[in-house]
């Protein structure tokens, strides 16, 4: 998975082409930590279909708020720079994320 920060998010996601998955996580977020390995697994399975990225919102708070992310974890799908789908908090389970991915691949 491509690790993003507040400077690389824009070129990689907002100016990116095609489908891009973003894992918004944060320091001290245990749910995010628990989910991450599942997303890594999915990134291996679907790496040819879409780009997998992650960003630590603790170091990019304004950016997260700008993306309407105010609670963690969030797994979002962007298409050509627009957020088109997302799973937030309890809905963000490995199973639901895979279902969401399958809608777009």
């Amino acid at each position, binding site marked *: 998975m491509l690790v993003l920060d507040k400077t690389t998010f824009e070129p990689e996601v907002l100016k990116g082409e095609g489908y891009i998955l973003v894992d918004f996580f*944060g320091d*001290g977020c*245990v*749910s995010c930590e628990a989910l991450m390995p599942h997303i890594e697994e999915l990134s291996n399975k679907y790496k040819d279909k879409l780009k997998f990225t992650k960003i630590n919102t603790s170091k990019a708070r304004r950016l*997260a*708020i700008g993306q309407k992310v105010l*609670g*963690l974890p969030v797994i979002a799908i962007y298409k050509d720079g627009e957020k088109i789908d997302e799973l*937030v*908090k309890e809905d963000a389970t490995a199973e639901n994320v895979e279902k969401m991915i399958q809608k777009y691949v």
Partner: protein
Amino acid sequence: MNKIYDVLIIGAGPAGLSAGIYAGRSRLSTLIVEKDKDGGQIVITSEIENYPGCLEGESGPTLVDRMVEQAKHFGVEKVYDEIVDVKLDGKEKVLVGKKGEYRGKALIIAGGASSRPIGCPGEKTFTGKGVSYCATCDAPFFEDFEVFVVGGGDTAVEEALYLTKFARKVSIIHRRDELRAVKSIQEKAFANPKMNFIWDSVVKEIKGDGLVNSIVLENVKTGQLTEIKADENDGTFGIFVFIGYVPKTKLFEGILNLEKGYIVTDENTKTNVEGVFAAGDIRVKSLRQVVTAASDGAIAAVQAGKYIESL
């Protein structure tokens, strides 16, 4: 997958881990089935001040890490799976998960509880968009913003105090005219200059546009409605909800005796089904704390051991 364990445990919170530690130490083959993350409620708890041996600075995750380590040390196995069906009649208890089936001679249910929602319009829509049930997860987003905390118990007030480290103002919205939290926590809250209190009030609606930008409160004494809008420069604020819990007992409806959704047990954590025990927040009890969850787990494991011997 065909192994028959001595003890199956649902849930890897303090009750389940404590049961695992006791069962494992008694050389019972033990499997903990956890749906998503170790620790349950306490991993979203910013500070643990009242568990014996926990000194200042202990957080939920650090305490749970040690419990997990301890259970592992005693040979307890763990699998991550969500149980979707149970077969509890008969000598063999079967848990049907999404990934597989698990069999055991005895079952300890320690699935815990999840945060109780307010149940007002807008709450679900704005979860993760300003509405949160986890201060440790989401507090950093509200640095220098305004935050509302719904509830007046220990958890609500403690988490409100934690939020004052981030937010510029934290207002507790409580349906009574006094807090239910223990006195020592109340004293800290009243002494904190960032804290503010809105008494006799409940949340009627949460509104926004992508993110929360207003909250409608009702004064329960006068019936008067008040809408609080986000500061224009902020554009949003946080609403943290700590008004109790809902036990995760849907699977056991019609099988186990429940009271208001909680599993009824005797003082030895036995349910109405032979070989099935319940521990922690999921059962009917007067005090739901880490210490009582751990205590339940210990009792349940010992009772499960006795039950297995009697087979």
